[in-house]
């Protein structure tokens, strides 16, 4: 096997740099510039993997991203491993290790190969039909089905590579760097348009760059030489950026495209160190020019999948571009003239072509004449009826085609070969066009789908637009571009193009064999092992829509998304069902065009960048004092401050006792703060909140409840009147951004007549809340110049003051039920003030407490937390907060909804307090509440919303919402848990100090 099939003299490969790589554990050599496929072929290796269902040996079919068979696992058992990598795309580098997939123990001897012999009992739909019964066996079936699912192996270790995202904006994006793409990029960039040209290959030039043929000339140069000069020129253009190894993954609406730029996959481990592996480009283009070319079609005939059977265009590329002969005894099988070009190319490289099988009756083109002159035997009006050789094709059998092409006749001829190039015509790559929402039109003459209706400013040029001949490509490209870019002339207007090819082709979607269809294996989808007979079976079983046939047979559902076989599937359905292909349509082309790694999609949003974090001004103090943190929205909030090995429960009990008995201090900086100014500010608040604001005196604070239009509680907080026309509103931590947006929306769209201005000052202030019986003493030490007497600063009032020359605001508001002082100071002085208060409070054992203790303290007072005790289904009345709804008010947001029949029902869920019979039993938040344990199905009356053990009351307390709970005071209910039922009593939600004596203590 160890042969060297390298022909000398490819300028695209650096033969001075030898590269060593491993395939299935064996060492091989290739050259810099080789793909894994070209390097393997140069080493005479065709067998690369096994097919998905029948485990048939498979080889390299193509030379591009459409490859269905040659997909391998790269660097298996390392953190850098990647499954399903196309050998035709990955470039070899020093140290690359590739292994075959879907085979065990080896690609040469694969136990799964037994499926091939069982194939008669494994038709399409086998799984659906077989594993339905008995239903109870499904779990057993599933175990085996899951084991055999998938091709490669998922990585087991975290991906150590770095991926990035990048936003790009351009005037013109050209997708595809073939001849028409290069021309488009040059025309566009030279007109001052910021142009981006992307191509999935390592180099631009498409297939023209190695088309060194006397038949194709531009300005008297071979098309390849001419294009080389063009590439040199466009490389100098200032407005043009060229990105190679960059594949457009998705073409979304309004010319938003995603591309994967592959930066280091072709480099050795040393060279790629610390570099970004892949970049996801998020491209916004004013105009998009699609020049994605076309894909050569295979032919569908019996056993058309053996290693050594390749696309004719791939044979040509391996010879002309990579300098590699795919076989020593080549045969070509074609329905059009392109195979003749391949034959001439191979012959010029000294690669032997034994014969050409042409299903057409004749071809009198120049190409055909030259092939005959070379002495290559042409079998016209003939077809391959079978192929032989298990792990590599050895020979083919050929018979004459009947006139209608539906059967074969005459003598069977056998021809030896080790490589069979097949040429079934061309399919324009319209994937991106359809992804963008474009509508296709079927061209009967060429049997292809072409772009018809463009949904955005985009255009298709070149062979993806149905132009396959050089002169047509160039002339049409120029014509289309002039209109699309609105220009009168281009630098190519006087171009002289000559190219000739007989356009005559004969299209037979399923070629006949001498055997009946049932005994043959004509593959349509190579990767998923869907054959023509599977498709016919699907039709027989009643599937008509192409989408249904696709799902039943799995045609087009592999990692290659059926780039090669989808058209044949359509053709066979159309022929069998007797419908026109134009009526049949295509399956939906979905992104990505080629698979994307998760890393690329995720980019840098990993580790510390996985989610945004926000920190309060006092964060460093909390960290230094070993606080545990809780995520509240994006904020990192101090949760509790354990002393030594204290558990959360112990810490919370200690913190809450300290707050009630002496003094506690809380970082409340995360609360949203909105500065409201304007002559209509109090009217604005009147309309927002359920209660009245007109009469709030300057210097006073008031609690407000904000509803949605549907009457449900949306947000709450205390708003302070700083001046006649100046308020500061506090919102919940999580609601801050939404509340501001909602208020701004109302001002701009509903009430533009109001003179009100909003400004967020959430981050401007550090908010420190000092509470407890000793809080006044501590605050007076910190702010000696402020009169803290009840007369000067009563509960729910505020004063402007200074601390060491720094302006700040002090508010008497309380979320704990204790006497509390909330000090708002500019954020950058926050930590210093906090430390100062801690120092002043030392003698009173001032205790920092976190969110958990805050929740407990407010629950003792029955204060709600919007979002914890409410869930957008509760009105203020449901919360037993009737007192806050201004009945006399003309209007406020949500007022009308409070009087709907549904919102005034008595049996709505209402907020109540719960006490457990056993005072030590702490309920679980979210636990369901029922009245009757025996009723089936069990009737759920509500659930627990907050639950704590209160050290101040020495019992467990809970808040809950219960259907009709308001009128159930004293009633016993049950909370069924996994192993027991807990008996609870409905009580008033205020557990502590109902008279509010502690506020002024």
């Amino acid at each position, binding site marked *: 096997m160890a042969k060297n099939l390298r022909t000398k003299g490819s300028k695209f490969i650096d033969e001075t740099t030898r590269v060593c790589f491993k395939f299935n554990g064996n060492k091989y050599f290739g050259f810099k510039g080789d793909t894994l496929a070209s390097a393997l072929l140069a080493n005479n290796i065709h067998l690369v993997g096994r097919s998905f269902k029948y485990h048939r040996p498979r080889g390299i079919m193509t030379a591009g991203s459409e490859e269905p068979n040659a997909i391998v696992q790269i660097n298996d058992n390392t953190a850098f491993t990647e499954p399903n990598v196309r050998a035709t795309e990955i470039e070899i580098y020093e140290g690359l290790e590739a292994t075959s997939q879907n085979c065990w123990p080896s690609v040469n001897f694969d136990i799964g190969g037994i499926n091939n012999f069982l194939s008669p009992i494994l038709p399409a739909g086998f799984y659906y039909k077989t594993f339905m019964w008995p239903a109870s066996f499904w779990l057993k079936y599933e175990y085996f089905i899951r084991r055999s699912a998938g091709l490669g192996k998922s990585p087991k270790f975290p991906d150590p590579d*770095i991926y*990035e*995202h*990048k*936003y*790009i*904006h*351009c005037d013109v994006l050209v997708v595809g760097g073939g001849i028409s793409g290069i021309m488009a990029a040059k025309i566009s960039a030279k007109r001052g348009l*910021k142009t981006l040209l992307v191509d999935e290959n390592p180099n631009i030039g498409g297939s023209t760059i190695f088309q060194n043929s006397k038949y194709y000339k531009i300005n008297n140069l071979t098309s390849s030489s001419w294009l080389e000069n063009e590439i040199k020129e466009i490389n100098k253009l200032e407005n043009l950026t060229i990105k190679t190894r960059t594949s457009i993954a998705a073409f979304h609406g309004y010319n938003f495209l995603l591309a994967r730029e592959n930066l280091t996959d072709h480099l050795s481990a040393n060279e790629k160190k*610390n*570099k*970004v592996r892949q970049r996801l480009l*998020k491209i*916004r283009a004013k105009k998009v020019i699609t020049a994605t070319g076309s894909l050569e079609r295979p032919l569908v005939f019996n056993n058309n999948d053996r290693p050594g059977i390749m696309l004719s265009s791939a044979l040509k590329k391996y010879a002309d571009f990579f300098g590699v002969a795919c076989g020593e005894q080549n045969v070509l099988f074609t329905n059009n003239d392109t195979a003749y070009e391949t034959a001439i190319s191979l012959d010029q490289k000294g690669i032997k072509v034994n014969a050409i099988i042409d299903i057409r009756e004749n071809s009198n083109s120049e190409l055909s004449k030259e092939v005959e002159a070379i002495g290559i035997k042409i079998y016209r009006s003939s077809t391959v009826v079978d192929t032989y050789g298990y792990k590599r094709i050895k020979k083919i059998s050929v018979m004459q085609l009947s006139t209608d092409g539906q059967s074969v006749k005459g003598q069977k001829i056998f021809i030896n070969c080790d490589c069979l190039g097949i040429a079934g015509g061309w399919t324009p790559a319209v994937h991106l066009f359809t992804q963008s929402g474009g509508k296709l039109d079927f061209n009967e003459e060429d049997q292809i789908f072409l772009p018809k209706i463009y949904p955005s400013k985009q255009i298709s040029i070149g062979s993806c637009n149905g132009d396959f001949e050089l002169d047509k490509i160039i002339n049409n490209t120029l014509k289309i571009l002039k209109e699309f870019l609105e220009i009168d002339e281009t630098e190519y207007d006087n171009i002289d193009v000559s190219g000739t090819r007989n356009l005559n082709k004969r299209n037979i979607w399923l070629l006949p064999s001498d055997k009946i269809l049932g005994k043959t294996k004509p593959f349509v989808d190579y990767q998923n092992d869907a054959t023509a007979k599977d498709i016919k079976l699907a039709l027989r079983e009643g599937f008509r829509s192409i989408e249904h046939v696709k799902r039943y047979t799995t045609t087009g559902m592999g990692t290659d998304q059926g780039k090669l076989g989808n058209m044949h599937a359509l053709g066979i359905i159309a022929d069998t069902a007797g419908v026109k292909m134009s009526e049949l349509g295509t399956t939906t082309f979905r992104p990505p065009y080629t698979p994307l790694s998760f890393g690329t999609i995720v980019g*840098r949003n990993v580790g*510390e*960048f996985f989610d*945004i*974090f*926000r*920190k*309060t*001004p006092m964060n460093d103090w909390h960290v230094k004092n070993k606080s545990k943190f809780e995520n509240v929205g994006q*904020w990192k909030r101090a949760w509790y401050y354990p002393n030594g090995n204290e558990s959360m429960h112990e810490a919370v009990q200690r913190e809450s006792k300290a707050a009630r008995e002496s003094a506690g201090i809380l970082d409340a900086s995360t609360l949203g703060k909105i*500065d409201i*100014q*304007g*002559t209509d500010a109090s009217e604005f608040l009147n309309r927002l909140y359920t209660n009245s604001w007109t009469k709030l005196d300057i210097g006073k604070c008031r609690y407000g409840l904000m509803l949605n239009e549907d009457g449900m509680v949306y947000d709450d907080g205390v708003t302070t009147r700083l001046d006649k*026309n*100046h308020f500061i509103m506090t919102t919940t931590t999580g609601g801050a951004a939404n509340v501001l947006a909602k208020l701004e929306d109302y001002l701009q769209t509903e009430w533009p007549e109001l*003179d009100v*201005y909003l*400004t*967020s*000052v*959430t*981050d*401007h*202030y550090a908010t420190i809340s000092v509470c407890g019986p000793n809080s006044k003493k501590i605050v007076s030490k910190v702010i000696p110049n402020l009169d803290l007497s009840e007369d000067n600063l009563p509960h729910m009032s505020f004063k402007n003051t200074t*601390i*060491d*020359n*720094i*302006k700040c605001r002090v508010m008497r508001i309380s979320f704990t039920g204790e006497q509390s002082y909330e000090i708002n*100071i*500019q*954020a*950058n*002085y*926050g*930590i*210093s*003030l906090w430390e*100062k208060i801690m120092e002043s409070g030392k003698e009173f054992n001032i205790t920092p407490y976190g969110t958990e203790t805050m929740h407990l303290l407010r629950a003792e007072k029955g204060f709600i937390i919007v979002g914890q005790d409410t869930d957008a289904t509760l009105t203020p009345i449901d919360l037993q907060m009737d007192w806050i709804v201004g009945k006399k008010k003309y209007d406020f947001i949500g007022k009308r909804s409070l009087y709907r029949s549904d919102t005034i029902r008595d049996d709505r869920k209402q907020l109540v307090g719960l006490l457990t019979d056993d005072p030590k039993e702490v309920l679980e938040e979210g636990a369901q509440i029922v009245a009757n344990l025996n009723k089936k199905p069990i009737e759920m009356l509500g659930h627990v919303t907050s639950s704590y053990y209160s050290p101040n009351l020495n019992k467990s307390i809970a808040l809950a919402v219960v259907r009709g709970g308001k009128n159930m005071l004293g009633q016993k209910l049950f909370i069924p848990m996994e192993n027991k039922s807990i008996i609870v009593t409905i009580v008033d939600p205020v557990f502590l100090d109902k008279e509010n004596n502690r506020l002024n203590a």
Partner: protein
Amino acid sequence: MLNYNSPLVKENSYSELSMKVINPIMKLIIRGKKREFLSGVGKAINMILPTESCTSSTSNDTTALWLSPDEWMILSNNVIDKNTNSYEQENHLINNISKINLGAVVDVTDQYVLINIEGKKIFDLLSTGCPFNFNDFRNKKGGVIQSLMAKIDIIVHHKEINNVNLLVRRSFSEHLYSFLSDAASRI
């Protein structure tokens, strides 16, 4: 004495790129619609507010950024005293604007952190996380835009060619700076 604590004390240099947090800089948001508002602001701080969208104007000691049709940010061009949070310009504005009901004046000095970025690669850096189209912006000094960087709200002021002031809310600043320096390290 209360100490001033900067949310970030950062300065980093990369090839053709450097980033530095600058503070304290006075920052005010002023909002108003009336014609008298514009003339009142002009008188109070001796400069004409930019009325063209996404632009700025600068005087000797103050810069005004256009944020929306009735909203501007006023920045001091130089750092201010750490030991006071009372600013002459703010007082002038309050007396000439909010006190006489022409509009709103709000101190946001600590609401935002100002990161100055200098060098040729500024916009390469921003393109790693900001969806805004900087193609025209980068060639014209004085531009102001509000967008997202790594999903965080930012204000970008194109101070000079190859010199940009980026304003981010204080609580997000550590995350954003970390994201920027991570991205900058590979540019």
